C-alpha cells in the first residue's frame, strides 16, 4: 500500500479494510494500486507531485445501511473518508480526496431512482444516478418531464446539486441545489437522518417541499463535510410544448450595459430561460484585431470598440430561449425584441431554432443546443479536446469560477481588471485562453454571472502546471480585491478561497469549524472540504 491515512497505523488500517470488506464484500473494497489509482483526479494540476491528492483505498457500498456501517467502522479506527457520488467533477477535483490518505466512499453503485412523479414534478434518487440515467428513465417510461442537465451529463444528480452545480433551462431549475428537496444523510456518527419532509415518517411530500420544519440544515451538506448524502429529492420541470431560440445583437461595447439590464428583466420576470451572452468576435483570428488585443501594454477598450464599429459587425450577442406554448414563446419573443430595440440603438434580431415537442431521437440528437432542451450529452468536452485549432491538447484544466454582479458594468470591469492581471502574471500558460475584450459571462446562475476560465493542465509537466497554479493563485487575489469570489474550486485552492470569504476575522470559517468539531469530533468525513479541517489536522494541513 503506497499511502496510509495520517496518524493511522498500518495495523489499524488493515483491520478497517478487513471490516469494510465484511460490510460490502471484498470485491467492492479497492486496495491495490492499479484500482486505487483510478481515484486520482485525472485533471490534477499536481499530477505526480508531492501534493497530489491521493486515496489510500476505496470502498463502494450499495445501500445507506452499508454507508452507515462504513462510517461507524471509520470512527473506531480514525479512518478519514471522502465520499464521491459518481466522482466526475472534472476541473474541480474529480474523484480524489481532499486529504491524501482518505478512503474514498464511492457511491456510484447506489443508482436507484426511488420515486418519480410527472404530475407533481419531482424525483427522489440515490447518488449514483447520473443525468443520463434519469433522462433515459424518463424517456423509457414516457413521463411528461424534463430534466435540467449540466455539462457534461454523466455526473451525479445529487453530487452536482451538492457542489452547487448548474444547468441550462429556467433559473429555478438550473440552480440544482436550489431545486433539490429533502435529503437522507449518514451523519459522521453513522446515524441516518432525513431532512425536509423526509424527516416526517409517512410524509408523501419529500420531493416537493424543501424545508419541512425548523432551521434549514441542508446547506451544511453542500460543498460540506457534515455527512454523506444517500438520497435526495429534485424538482423536475414539465415538458413544454415548444422551444424558441433567438438571437439579439448589439453594435457597441458599452451596449452590454442596457442589454444586460433588459435581459435581466425578461429573465427575472420568468419570460425567458437561460440567456447566453457572447460575441461574434470571440473566435476571430483577424490579424488587425489580434494586434490590438495583444498589445504589450494591454488592449484599449475604445480602440477595440472602434475596430468593431468600423467592421460593421455587432460587438455582443445574446441568445434568448423561450419555453412553453408556441403562441406564448412567439409573443414573448416579440416583447423581448421591442424592449431591447427601445433600449439599444442599432440592435438586430434573428430567430435561430424553433422546436415542437415531443421530438424524435433523431431530432433531439441534431438539435443545436441539446442541454437547453434537457438532453444530456458530452459536447462540452470540445473545450480542450484536440481539434484543428488545438492540435496539442492539454490533459484537462482547473476551473477558475468567480461570481460577479449580473450587470454589464461588472462584465466590462472584470474584462479590464483580469486581462491586466493575466498580463502582469506573464500571460496564460500555453497561450490559449485567458480574458479579453470579448469575454462573456456564463449565465448558469439565476441571479449572478460567473466569469469562468479553464487553466490548462499538462500531465507530467510540473513546470507548466506550476504556471497554471501560480496564475490561479494570483487571479484569486485580484478577484477578491474587487469583491469577486469563486463559487466552487479545485481542492488545491480550497483553503485560499475560503480565506477570501473572511468578513469579521473569518467568522464564517470559525462557525464552520465549531460545527465540524461538534458533529464530527474524529474528523471522519471529507476532511478539508471547502477549507474546513477537523481539529486534529487544523494546524498541519492548512
Amino acid at each position: 500500500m503506497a499511502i496510509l491515512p495520517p496518524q493511522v497505523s498500518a495495523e489499524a488500517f488493515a483491520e478497517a479494510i478487513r471490516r469494510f470488506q465484511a460490510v460490502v464484500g471484498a470485491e467492492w473494497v479497492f486496495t491495490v494500486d492499479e484500482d486505487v489509482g483510478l481515484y486520482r483526479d485525472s485533471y490534477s494540476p499536481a499530477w505526480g507531485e508531492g501534493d497530489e491528492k491521493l486515496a489510500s483505498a476505496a470502498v463502494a457500498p450499495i445501500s445507506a445501511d452499508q454507508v452507515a456501517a462504513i462510517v461507524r467502522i471509520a470512527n473506531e479506527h480514525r479512518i478519514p473518508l471522502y465520499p464521491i457520488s459518481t466522482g466526475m467533477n472534472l476541473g474541480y477535483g474529480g474523484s480524489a480526496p481532499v486529504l491524501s490518505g482518505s478512503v474514498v466512499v464511492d457511491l456510484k453503485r447506489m443508482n436507484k431512482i426511488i420515486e418519480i412523479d410527472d404530475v407533481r414534478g419531482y424525483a427522489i434518487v440515490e447518488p449514483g444516478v447520473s443525468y443520463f440515467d434519469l433522462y433515459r428513465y424518463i424517456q423509457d417510461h414516457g413521463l411528461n418531464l424534463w430534466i435540467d442537465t449540466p455539462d457534461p451529463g454523466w455526473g451525479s444528480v445529487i453530487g452536482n446539486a451538492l457542489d452547487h452545480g448548474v444547468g441550462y433551462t429556467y433559473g429555478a431549475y438550473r440552480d440544482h441545489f436550489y431545486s433539490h428537496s429533502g435529503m437522507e444523510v449518514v451523519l459522521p456518527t453513522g446515524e441516518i437522518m432525513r431532512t425536509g419532509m423526509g424527516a416526517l415518517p409517512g410524509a408523501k411530500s419529500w420531493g416537493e417541499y424543501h424545508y419541512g420544519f425548523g432551521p434549514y440544515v441542508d446547506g451544511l451538506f453542500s460543498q460540506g463535510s457534515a455527512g454523506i448524502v444517500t438520497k435526495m429529492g429534485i424538482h423536475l420541470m414539465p415538458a413544454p410544448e415548444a422551444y424558441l431560440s433567438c438571437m439579439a445583437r448589439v453594435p457597441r461595447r458599452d451596449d452590454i450595459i442596457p442589454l444586460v439590464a433588459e435581459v435581466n428583466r425578461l429573465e427575472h420576470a420568468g419570460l425567458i430561460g437561460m440567456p447566453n451572452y457572447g460575441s461574434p468576435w470571440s473566435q476571430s483570428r483577424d490579424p488587425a484585431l489580434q494586434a490590438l488585443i495583444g498589445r504589450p501594454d494591454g488592449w484599449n477598450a475604445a480602440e477595440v470598440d472602434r475596430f468593431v464599429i468600423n467592421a460593421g459587425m455587432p460587438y455582443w450577442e445574446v441568445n434568448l430561449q423561450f419555453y412553453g406554448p408556441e403562441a406564448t414563446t412567439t409573443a414573448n419573443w416579440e416583447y423581448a425584441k421591442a424592449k431591447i430595440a427601445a433600449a439599444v440603438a442599432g440592435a438586430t434580431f434573428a430567430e435561430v431554432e424553433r422546436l415542437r415537442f415531443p421530438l424524435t431521437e433523431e431530432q433531439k440528437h441534431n438539435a443545436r443546443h441539446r442541454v437547453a432542451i434537457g438532453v444530456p450529452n458530452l459536447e462540452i468536452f470540445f473545450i480542450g479536446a484536440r481539434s484543428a485549432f488545438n492540435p496539442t491538447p492539454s490533459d484537462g484544466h482547473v476551473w477558475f469560477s468567480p461570481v460577479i454582479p449580473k450587470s454589464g458594468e461588472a462584465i466590462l470591469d472584470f474584462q479590464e481588471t483580469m486581462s491586466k492581471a493575466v498580463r502582469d502574471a506573464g500571460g496564460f500558460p500555453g497561450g490559449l485562453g485567458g480574458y479579453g475584450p470579448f469575454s462573456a459571462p456564463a449565465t448558469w446562475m439565476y441571479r449572478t454571472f460567473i466569469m469562468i476560465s479553464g487553466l490548462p493542465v499538462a500531465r507530467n509537466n510540473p513546470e507548466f502546471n506550476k504556471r497554471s497554479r501560480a496564475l490561479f493563485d494570483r487571479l484569486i487575489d485580484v478577484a477578491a480585491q474587487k469583491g469577486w469570489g469563486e463559487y466552487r474550486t479545485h481542492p488545491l485552492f480550497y483553503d485560499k478561497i475560503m480565506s477570501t470569504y473572511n468578513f469579521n476575522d473569518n467568522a464564517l470559517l470559525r462557525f464552520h469549524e465549531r460545527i465540524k468539531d461538534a458533529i464530527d469530533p474524529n474528523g471522519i468525513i471529507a476532511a478539508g472540504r471547502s477549507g474546513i479541517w477537523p481539529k486534529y489536522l487544523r494546524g498541519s494541513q492548512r
Partner: protein
Amino acid sequence: MTTRIALVAAAAVLVAAGSTSGQDIGEAPTFARLYDHTTLTKGSDVYTYWCWNCHGDGPGKPGTAALMARYNGAVPAVLTERTDLSAELVKVYVRNGLSIMPHFRKTQISDAQLEALAAYLARKD
C-alpha cells in the same frame, strides 16, 4: 461542416473548437433502456452507455472530432468503424484516459464489462 461553438465555451475561454465529425446529421442509438449501468453485459450496450456520446457519429462528439484531427482520416474517426483496434488498447485507454478523456473506475465499468466493450470495439467487421 457545421461549426458548433459550445455556448459555455464562448464564456469559458479555453479553446471552443468546431466539430469536425464526419456528418452534420447523425443517427441516434436506442438507449432509453440504458439507465442502470450495473446491469450492462453486452459490449455494444457498454459502448452506447459510456462511449457513444463522445465517440459516436453525428454532431457534438468531441472524441470523434479529436480523432479526426489526430489521424486526419487515415483511420475512421468513429470508434465503432475502426478495424485496427486491439482489445488490449481499448482497455489501456479506458483505465488510463488520454488528454481530456478521464480514466474510468471499476464501479463505472467493471472488469467484465470492459472485456465485453474491448471485444466489441476490437471486432474486425
